[in-house]
């Protein structure tokens, strides 16, 4: 079981970690561990785990108005990033020893210096990630990972050997496999675990060392499998697509309206838990391939090979597979305002899914509960039309 002082079943522990985000990191910090925050899905956690630090993904809070960030961070920046920065300025990430920011999108890249100069942490690193999957891009990214390793070694004073990396890769592959097992339990009708519960688990996992996350997931899987009276069957099985949806609000709205969220294509969900890292004697090369080629994020451009239909399938085929495997009958495409990587994909994703005869609700939203009334109305209308 989890080595923290928290007791109870897995799901209740996950809920605690969800509600008191960073709880475990604070405990571990008190025990002398170094805690490194990171933004987005492009930071190889395997490297942080191999360095022996506690990785914590930075999240915002849709329930807290942004009051401090706007002085230095423009309001045209991704609202999630603004919320994250606002929380950091308010001391909610006081336990961090460092921060890693990847070159993922403009909002993340352009604000790295703002984070750095305001937080004044002992360790900050910008990980450059190419926008393409070409051979030179992979080679360059591998070199950037080597640089990241060197930088972390300097900070921690600990060598990160290839063997350490392979060990960490195996632990994270195990973590991903466990999360996929949990997703499997959503295939049944009704699913054994709700979208709200799943969001709590995904968020909790963002704040834990990988071994603790593995223990927690094992416990949750046992608990969920043992449910003999799952929630009532609902009329709609919904997939949610978007970026870092790290609050249960949207799932609550959907699930309060006679629907179940059964699968996602979110960057805290299937996007990061589906692709594994190959275990071989070139761990940096494996990490480069996994994070650049296999992670299906719109910020990575994929060259078109073959016909247009093949290209569309290459970009969105995983969504089609999820729809079939999880018997999805409706999709909520939930995009944050000012998100260029996702924003430009919306017409293509929508067209692709609708071609599968699945209705799509496209919502552009701020990262804030202030729009919850409008969201409820749109979701209710969508589910009613789906019948």
């Amino acid at each position: 079981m989890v080595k923290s002082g928290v007791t109870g079943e897995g799901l209740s522990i996950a809920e605690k970690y969800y509600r008191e985000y960073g709880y475990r990191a604070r405990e571990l910090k008190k025990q002398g561990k170094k805690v490194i925050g990171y933004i987005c899905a492009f930071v190889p956690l395997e490297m942080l785990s191999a360095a022996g630090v506690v990785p914590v993904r930075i999240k915002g809070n849709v329930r807290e108005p942004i009051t401090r960030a706007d002085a230095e961070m423009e309001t045209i920046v991704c609202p999630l990033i603004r919320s994250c920065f606002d929380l950091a300025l308010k001391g909610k990430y006081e336990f961090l020893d460092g921060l890693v920011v990847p070159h993922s999108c403009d909002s993340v890249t352009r604000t790295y210096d703002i984070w750095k100069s305001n937080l004044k942490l002992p360790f900050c690193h910008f990980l450059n990630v190419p926008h393409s999957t070409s051979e030179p891009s992979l080679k360059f990214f591998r070199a950037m990972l080597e640089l990241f390793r060197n930088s972390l070694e300097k900070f921690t004073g600990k060598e990160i050997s290839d063997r350490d990396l392979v060990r960490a890769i195996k632990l994270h592959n195990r973590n991903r496999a466990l999360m996929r097992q949990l997703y499997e339990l959503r295939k049944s009708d009704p699913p054994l675990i709700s979208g709200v519960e799943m969001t709590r688990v995904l968020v909790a996992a963002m704040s834990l060392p990988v071994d603790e996350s593995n223990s927690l997931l094992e416990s949750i899987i046992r608990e969920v499998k043992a449910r003999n009276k799952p929630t009532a069957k609902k009329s709609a099985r919904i997939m949610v697509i978007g970026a870092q949806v790290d609050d249960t609000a949207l799932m609550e709205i959907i699930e309060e309206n006679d629907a179940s969220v059964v699968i996602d294509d979110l960057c805290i969900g299937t996007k990061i838990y589906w692709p594994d890292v190959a275990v071989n004697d070139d761990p940096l090369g494996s990490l480069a391939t996994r994070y650049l080629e296999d992670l299906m994020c719109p910020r990575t451009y994929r060259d078109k090979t073959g016909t247009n239909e093949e290209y569309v399938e290459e970009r969105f085929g995983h969504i089609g597979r999820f729809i079939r495997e999880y018997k999805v009958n409706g999709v909520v495409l939930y995009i944050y305002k000012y998100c260029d990587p996702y924003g430009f994909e919306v017409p293509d994703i929508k067209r692709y899914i609708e071609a599968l005869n699945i209705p799509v609700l496209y919502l552009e939203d701020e990262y804030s509960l202030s729009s919850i009334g409008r969201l409820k109305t749109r979701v209710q209308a969508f589910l009613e039309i789906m019948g």
Partner: protein
Amino acid sequence: MAVPIAPRKKATNAASKIPGMVKSLISEAHRAKQEGRPTAYSFICSGYDEIIRAMDITPIWVENFAGVCAAKREAPRFLERAEAGNFSRSLCTYATCGLGFDLLREELGQMPPSAPWGGQVRPDVMLGSGQMICDPRYKWFQAAQQLMPDVPVYVTNAFYPPFEDDIDYREIIDHYVRYMTEELRGLVRFLEKNTRRKMDWDRLSELVDLTDRTWTLIHNTYELRKAVPTPMDTGDAMNTMVPVAFMMATQQCYDFFTELYAELQDRIANKIGVIPEEKYRLMWGGGLPSWFALSDFNYFWSKGAVFPVETTYRVIEDMAALDIPRVSDPLEHIAWRYIKYFLRWHDAARKRPGSHPDVERLILYIEDYKIDGIVIHEAFSCRSWHPGLLWQLSVLKKIYKPVPVLTLGRDGKSSQEYREVPSLVLESDIVDISSYSEADTHNRIDAFIATLESQKK
């Protein structure tokens, strides 16, 4: 909401030729299309100017066309078409204007009626760019390809090292140069395959040399603007950006700046300034302009304020200062030049605690151009160039206080203190005129001028 367009008044003779040059850029694409020569949707500042010129591929500058649509107040119908096609209004409006236009052209099978300057022709290839900033540069053409599935896209990655406390760029620059060189080589292969044009490597080397000389010439020309009164200001530079951004690696660009250089020398010799009496010298410290409201520069002039310098579109440097190693591969040379440009202010930033290369650039210009105040423009739809501007001003305020001000204490004694350079933040967009309020903009300018006035006293 139509806002009357006030005519610009103080342009240099060279800059007054720009509208004709823009028009011929667009008509050249039409001509190439008619003659069966390859055309390419292209982005500025992507490091591939010499390559496409050496291969006789006619660029179609998509940002230019969106800017033209904005300046001619023709953009709303294209923005609306894009929005109807599920492209959010919050995305880059250069891109949504261009995509809206493409949507209409592809639907109609011909140019949309009354398209500005004959419209934007359908390209043979689209050349995206993956850079440190500007997501639309690789997403726009990917989206456009769904409207034109037969048009191939290539994305060239061109990165530079970030400013880090624990890493000197010299330790890692080779990775970046090698990477960009290989990406450019991939672009040449792509173009040879898709346009059936062979690269003329000798021609490429000539154009690389021409571009080097042009960079230094533009730098020297803009340095002349340090003169008091300044012979040319940002209002003009938002026009002279046309040869900088859209005509690099052409003799025409070099000749344009040769002429402008001579004209500015002449103006300086005859003490001809942009306005009769310069009261305030301002820097355009960042942000793309509102192309539909360039006449706001007239309003600044009416208040006695001129802009001898800007960071926007000053995407060239003195080649000697860049200190590039001699290499025989023209593609590698392009990569070195591109990357070293972005590292130009790193060393200065290391020397000043709490500073940053972008802030050092502001400080350099403040001192060199005798700047009294900074103006930035926050365009709501662009996350490439605008995020970080407020922070730069904030850092500048903390680390740099060059303005001596005499204050009178309660004891009746005067004392001197130093204050930061005042700044003004304008808010609107590059293309979307619905975000613009002339009254609000002028009110802000009035208040800023009042601040400058109080500091001068």
